[in-house]
């Protein structure tokens, strides 16, 4: 076992299927997301993460509502986000929502924080986009304290102060959800993750390997600089994007219209250029395995790999077929291959259980030191 987690992350876009012109309704899209999450657990994946968006054509504006519903229908899979907006959400509300989700899911909860990349969202939530970075820093400082301190007195520049505030419910077992900081291209986020010794998720789906290498290297170096351990012991996650068919030509033929018309990269680089420049793999399960194993060459031994599967108007049936291939043919091989030659310093992906165990061991050690 590598202690590596494999999962999927969804953007939650309602995009017309370019081959038929028809788009799902919002209700259909939300239901499809739930079906996809349940399927992810069924095929043996470890993580399901949802994005957060507050404008059409996206549906996941209330991630913990969605994740709570999924938690009720699953047993094992870890529920996370990609990302939760630390800038525009109130930290008190984030702390409450994820605390409740932790209790409901039995600790199958973590969170990935990000700044978001949609400027107009800021005023919708009463925030000032010019303060994006200071908001990130201040909100996160408060969020950490809400999860860790019983009674919080807090004062900042961008939010009203708190006096004697106690978060209810307290985090499950007194263990705050593990925090990842997600970034496409912002070095500030890597620095923030390193400062606190949190996880760093490089969403490198739109970004060439050279940039991801630079971001991850910097995060690992700064993680060590801030005294959290060696660079190898930092906690790294990566995004990826795949479309598979048993025969790679079939995959390319079937995916091309979706790629060519995708809202995010359609009408730009060709499918071939994009696959050679970014983590996107369109081909056989073996090609996905080969490319994903290559991520380690520039990111080091890492902890979490999330794939984007359900986007660009792909029909639900196709997405579920992708999950079958991922769960049956790709992830078992990745688990085995990533374990080969893995640095002994590379930690397992943190979970509620592992954090609880670490806390208990630490307490035991401290008690022993005191009595001895």
């Amino acid at each position, binding site marked *: 076992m590598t202690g590596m987690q494999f999962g999927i992350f969804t953007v939650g876009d309602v995009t017309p299927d370019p081959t038929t012109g028809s788009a799902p309704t919002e209700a259909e899209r939300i239901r499809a997301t739930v079906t996809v999450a349940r399927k992810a657990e069924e095929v043996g994946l470890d993580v399901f993460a949802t994005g957060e968006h507050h404008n059409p054509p996206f549906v996941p504006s209330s991630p913990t509502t969605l994740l709570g519903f999924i938690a009720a229908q699953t047993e094992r899979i870890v529920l996370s986000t990609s990302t939760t907006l630390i800038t525009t959400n109130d930290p008190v509300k984030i702390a409450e929502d994820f605390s409740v989700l932790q209790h409901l899911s039995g600790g199958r909860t973590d969170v990935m924080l990000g700044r978001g990349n949609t400027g107009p969202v800021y005023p919708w939530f009463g925030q000032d986009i010019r303060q994006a970075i*200071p908001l990130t820093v201040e909100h996160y400082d408060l969020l950490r304290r809400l999860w860790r301190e019983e009674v919080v007195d807090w004062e900042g520049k961008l939010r009203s102060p708190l006096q004697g505030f106690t978060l209810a419910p307290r985090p499950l077992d007194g263990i705050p959800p593990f925090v990842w900081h997600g970034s496409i291209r912002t070095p500030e986020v890597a620095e923030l993750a390193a400062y606190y010794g949190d996880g760093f998720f490089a969403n490198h789906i739109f970004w060439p390997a050279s940039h991801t290498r630079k971001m991850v290297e910097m995060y690992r170096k700064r993680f060590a600089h801030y005294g959290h351990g060696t660079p190898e012991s930092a906690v790294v996650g990566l995004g990826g994007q795949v479309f598979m068919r048993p025969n790679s030509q079939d995959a390319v033929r079937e995916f091309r219209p979706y790629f060519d018309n995708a809202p995010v990269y359609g009408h730009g680089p060709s499918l071939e*250029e994009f696959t050679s420049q970014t983590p996107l793999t369109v081909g056989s399960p073996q090609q996905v395995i080969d490319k994903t194993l290559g991520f380690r060459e520039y990111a080091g031994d890492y902890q979490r790999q999330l794939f984007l599967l359900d986007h660009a108007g792909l029909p639900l049936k196709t997405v579920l077929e992708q999950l079958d291939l991922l769960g049956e043919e790709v992830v078992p091989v990745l688990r085995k291959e990533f374990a080969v030659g893995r640095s002994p310093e590379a930690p397992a992906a943190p979970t509620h259980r592992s954090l609880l165990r670490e806390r208990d061991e630490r307490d035991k050690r401290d008690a022993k030191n005191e009595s001895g």
Partner: protein
Amino acid sequence: MTTKITIITGGLREPSSTRMLANRMEAAVRTQLTAAGSTVESSFVELRPLGHAIIDAMFSGFPAEPLEEAFGTVADADGVIAVTPAFNASFSGLFKSFFDVLPEETLSDMPVLMGATGGTERHSLVLEHALRPMFSYLHAIVSSRGVYAATDDFGSQSDGAVLRDRIDAAAADYARLVRGCGPHRRRDAFGEGAAAMEQLLGRDRP
């Protein structure tokens, strides 16, 4: 002292009068800087082969490898010579697009010599009303004298002597500017972003 000059040239045809002007400007600048004791290393960035990559970068948000290399060539320079054809009373769209995707701050404090070509000399102020404001916006240090060359300049009986004088005069100004500015420090937006965050995190903390 080695001085790195990068010449950005936006001509579309082969042979290109824009490239011809760029060659002559480069040669004149090289002569001036060499006479002043510098060793000149010139690199040309032709925009035509990068056309698709430039538009792709606009859509995808990241540059393909050849474009990234071109960005590096510009960022590593101590001075930039930028030459565009004049289209519809402005720079060409391709020329503008290159600067639209060039990473921010690349041209900050960069000595720039402007050049443009056009069918008639009636467009000569394109240097002043299109190129100079853009480069000023990008915080480049734009040399006072640019070079505009019309078709007539290339066809004149005197073998372009008048154009040659204009190029030499502009090159002399520019060489003084480049020498005055000294080696250009490449900006590291990545490191600066991280450093700013470090400072923010450290503030108000025990």
